[in-house]
């Protein structure tokens, strides 16, 4: 394995981490804007998110190409340490761990943003259903049983 290629790959992973940090920030802001009903801010976030998603996509392609060049196709990030040249083991360990941590933070922020959005959509759905008489009962309201209580009905088995 060419060690300079490997060094370049580690630098690429650090760049990827920086991009993840950016997306994490966008996700955090997105959740904040949803909570404060700031649609303009949310729109801006969506645009930035789209742009960063494209960056991530190109990163993904670059990663595949670099792994192929290193002869490490199919090697998971967690396993990278096992293939690192001895002089880069410490750096690899740090880089991989940092990237995993950044990814965990991104996942956390993404889940929160998604949940907040979904909850708001749920609210919108409820309002629309309440406004539409054909949509039936209001969501969240435990509908009264259309049947009479059993004591007022005849038990035909008797």
């Amino acid at each position, binding site marked *: 394995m060419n060690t300079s290629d490997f060094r370049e790959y580690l630098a690429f992973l650090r760049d990827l981490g920086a991009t993840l940090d950016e997306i994490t920030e966008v996700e955090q802001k997105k959740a904040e804007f949803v909570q404060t009903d700031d649609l303009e801010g949310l729109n801006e976030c969506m645009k930035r998110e789209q742009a960063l998603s494209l960056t991530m996509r190109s990163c993904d392609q670059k990663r595949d190409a670099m792994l192929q060049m290193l002869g490490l196709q199919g090697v998971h990030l967690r396993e990278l340490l096992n293939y690192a040249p001895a002089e880069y083991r410490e750096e690899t360990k740090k880089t991989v761990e940092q990237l995993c*941590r950044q990814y965990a933070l991104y996942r956390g922020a993404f889940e929160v943003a998604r*949940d907040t959005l979904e909850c708001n959509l749920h609210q919108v759905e409820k309002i629309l259903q309440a406004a539409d008489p054909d949509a039936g009962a209001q969501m969240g309201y435990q509908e009264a049983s259309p049947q009479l209580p059993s004591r007022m009905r005849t038990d035909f088995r008797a």
Partner: protein
Amino acid sequence: MDITTFGAFTTARLGIYAAQKSLNVTGNNIANINTTGYTRQAVDQVSLRVGATNHYASANGGVTGSGVLVTGMSQFRDPYLDIRYRNENSSVGAMDAKLGGLEELSNILDEVGKGSDGNKGEGIMAAQFQDLRDQLAKLTGDQSTEDEFLTLARSSADSLVKLMNNYAQRLGEVEKNQANGLQKDVSSVNDILKNIQTLNENIQKGEIYGDSSLELRDQRNLKLDELSQYIKIDVTYEPVSVGAGKTVDKLVIKTSGDNPITLVDGDYAGQLSTSDGLVVNPSYASDPTQPQYLKPDGTGTNTASEAQKVEYTLTLSNLTNRNGTELTGTGHQFGDTELYGSLQASRELLTEAGEFSTVTMTKVDADAATKRGIPYYQNALDSLARKFASVLNAANTGYMYNSAGNYIKTDGTEITDIHGDPIHKVEILTSALKTELDGAGGVPLGGVLFSNSSNGDLTNDITAANISISKSWSTDASVLQNSFQALEGKSTVGSSDNRNILHILAQFDGKQDYKPGDMVTDATDGATKFFSGSFEEMFTNIEETLATDTKSTTTLLDNYSVSTTALDSDRDSVSGVDLNDEAMNMMQYQKSYSAACRLMTTLDEVLDKLINGTGVTGR
């Protein structure tokens, strides 16, 4: 059949009753506006029509209803928000418990801003390392007061090891606190499970007798919220027939994940306990002829010592009802990564060793090497203490050599090997070389500075908890060897020769490799160094690792907390009592009540006319 002449009174009466009931519920809602966990209630009512279509339909047509019927009470709840809230709550619980543990560790290991040098705030441990260097450096200068400086150097070293002892002891206390905390959490979870079981039973009984038991449901929902902090749960309601065509809801709580385990099934509930951690063979419960335990390779064994061991394992008992009837086969031993929530976070704080994870631990959890709990910090500190002791002991132990660097005997002659060549000094003495030099009359100098106890000079298994000034050094400050080189043509070391002190000082700046295998023999990646640097840098690395973990946990906790708070507000907007709504309802029901009363009066007047004023002409 239409309503009878006097039936209209029933219509009015039912109207009064429904309005009265609604007013009662509105009053109850208002009264409970500040009650924790109270869910807003509403009256369920249906339009009543007595009888059915018959053969003799009235020629006049116009079948009317017979009033209103109150069928029960219901609550305003949104199950979607409950599920979301409880999911997020388990993340908050997990991060909160983890952060609590990390903060306890930070109180010990985070020395930012602390230290004797107030201006630099370099840290207590770093300051003590620096102090030892300063004291050793003094030995390289004026030798007139050498004995005093030797004692000062020893005192400084003693302070440093006592500091390590203190940190190790406090880490041990954190571990004990966490273990107690886990036990307390387990007992809280057990109380919650028992409470839910009792509530389920009472709610079911109430439902059978036609009572919705809304207040009990509120209590149960509060308990479910509480439980979701400890364990990530899935709550479902299943209809169960209780005979006579009646069904009631049965509440089932399962752990969330790939392998859901039932914690509560209606009026049956399990109880958690911490076990010895030996992994039990799942087939053993149903077939006792099978091996009782599983080995790390997955094969069975009946020998406890061969079994795979997962520390602080949680075990769920068979689900049992209040009469003691057990649902056999429902018990379960939770795997290392099967739970999520504060219980799991507490477990991980107590078990995760990061780079010091053993092969068994890595097999159970592939991410074990990146999860760091108290054992990691204990091992890292032990690693520093052991390296420090071994490097300085090696630097202070040797044999006298001449200016050519060859080992000499007491008479000053060089020691030769089997080929007759002189033996040149080496940095680290092997035991074979020691034996050879001892046998050949070499002159041993210096000695062990740090040992595993203050009562002896043994250097095996040194940890941060037991590192001490060796007995030899504590009784004789001059064990600290100033040089191993003899004076030219003599077999004594010059008192002003400080070569070895300089060599020891150089060790403080030298980079040392720290490997997990030095501390844990069966560490997964034992031979790979996890850090390389000076003693002070190693301690800073421990601090940095802790700080990074604390920072990312704080960020995650902040994210989840904000989301949980928002979800709780959303839930409150559905389930909470709103005074404006209730005031409007109150006015509306008051008017309904008045109108129904008016109807009664009107009917009375109408019928009075019919009975007393109709067909009376000429009487």
